[in-house]
């Protein structure tokens, strides 16, 4: 297996407007293999978003090495190696649903017909085929987030970076979205997902590996392999192994001073 993300001794220090330094991340090392589904979990402020944004080259590390698909993060961004899903769907309100999904394809200069066809295919994948011509405000929060996932997948990146994509959704919708995401990931065997979440059960349910982080300064406290059988479904949550794994994650979080964690 080849590692698609390779992180060595990565640190990030923010300097606030008042000159006070915040050590958001310190000496983080992490290798993610192609095809993995890795969740980052940890208390608020432990640097999960910071780590994800550095992988995406939306911010630059202070120290350390980081390669994405064997390239610098910047090169990987320029080569459009990843799709990013934000916590709020970040749809453009002046575009219809299908035009939102076409946006990356427009920027990447795909032909008009190909764009349409691909966007349509992606909307079917997230089961929003009937909503092509709606504007974002006409959709519910969960539907909007599905559109943003379709948009991230539209140009077929090998890497999907998701920052608390379902954080704003209610429990029922969130579980449905989890299943959809697993279905999509299973359909694309080479796709790697890095998924930030606050929810222990969500992390365990989805992942092949959970990375538990601790705050002040942000570090990796523990990595837990999730060897639950696949395909996963509602029965998975009833397995003893599932309980066992969630309590392991919970303990790891407590040891790293777990505050502000829900399930």
């Amino acid at each position, binding site marked *: 297996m080849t590692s698609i993300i390779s992180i060595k001794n990565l640190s990030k220090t923010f300097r606030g407007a008042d000159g006070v330094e915040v050590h958001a991340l310190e000496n983080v090392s992490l290798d993610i293999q192609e095809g993995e589904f890795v969740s980052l979990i940890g208390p608020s402020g432990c640097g999960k978003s910071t780590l994800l944004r550095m992988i995406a080259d939306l911010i630059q590390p202070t120290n350390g090495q980081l390669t994405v698909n064997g390239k610098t993060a910047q090169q990987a961004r320029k080569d459009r190696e*990843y799709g990013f899903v934000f916590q*709020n769907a970040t749809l453009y309100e002046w575009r219809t649903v299908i035009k939102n999904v076409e946006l990356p394809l427009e920027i990447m200069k795909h032909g008009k017909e190909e764009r349409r066809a691909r966007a349509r295919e992606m909307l079917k994948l997230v089961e929003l085929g009937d909503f092509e011509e709606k504007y974002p405000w*006409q959709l519910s929060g969960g539907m909007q987030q599905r559109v943003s996932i379709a948009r991230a997948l539209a140009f077929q990146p090998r890497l999907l970076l998701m920052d608390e994509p379902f954080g704003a959704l209610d429990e029922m919708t969130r579980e449905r979205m989890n299943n959809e995401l697993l279905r999509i990931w299973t359909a694309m065997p080479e796709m790697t997902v890095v998924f930030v979440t606050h929810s222990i059960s969500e992390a365990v349910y989805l992942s092949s590996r959970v990375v538990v982080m601790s705050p002040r300064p942000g570090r990796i406290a523990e990595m837990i392999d999730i060897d639950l059988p696949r395909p996963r479904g509602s029965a998975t949550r009833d397995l003893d192994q599932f309980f066992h794994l969630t309590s392991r994650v919970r303990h790891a979080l407590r040891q790293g001073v777990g505050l502000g964690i829900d399930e």
Partner: protein
Amino acid sequence: MAAASERIEPNARAERPPRDSSGMRTLLSSILIIAALCLLWEGLKNFSKSVDYALTVGETTIDLSLFNDTQLPHLGDILGAFSEPSQRNGPPLYAMLLENALYTLWAAVRGFFIGGAIGFILAILFAHSRLLQRGLLPYVVASQTVPILAIAPMVVIWMGRAGALEWSVPIIAAYLTFFPVTIYTLRGLTSIPPTALELMQSYAAGWWDILVKLRLPNALPQIFTALKISATASVVGAIIGELPSGIQTGLGIAILNFSRYYNQSPPRLFATILMAGLLGILFFAVIAGVERLVVRWRAEAAS
């Protein structure tokens, strides 16, 4: 039958919210306000007349001669003036005003487009260059502190020397219109939700794509706010610009003439002012109409 159609209605509404109801309400309330103002106008005149234009409250006497017929004509007289000849053996006033209004409107429209284009280009430059913004924006703001009345004669002289006198009025109008366009467009281009911009960065989008696919559509509501302000300002600018221009046509010239002969016929000046106001409202309404067509997503979401 009736029950069935009632059940379908709410769904149809959810898909496309009714746009007309808010428009109707605006129309209705503005008619009400106009009616109230008319009542106030005539009421004050009647009241003042009944107390012989002097109201005594305790020791002090308030002079109400402002409301007599030579200072503030009856609304009926003002409306009546439209159909009377504008001068001896001349065409009726409304025809004469309409001709002048069209002339002024044409200058205002040219000024609107010149000012709009300049304002738009400045905003795009400022949005992309901190240096230009810091260096030039203060002058853009300062330009509006110089009274238009002081600028207008200079423009007339310059344009006269350049042999383009017919452009002096549009340029004076443009001087008033570029400013709101610059300020509002700049704000619309730069006040972008951070993640909306990061999305573009994640696609490694170039500045042109970011401008066309994010900044401009994001700015459209603000651009239209500016254009509506500019539409009315361009009419004001054109009327003021006509005063020192030496031109013989236009609402500004008509205002000048009728104020000279005010004592002979006050309603004619008021009628001309009314015409100028209507012209501004008309231009404003046209832009508001275009806005509804262009900013679709907002128009529907708002109602």
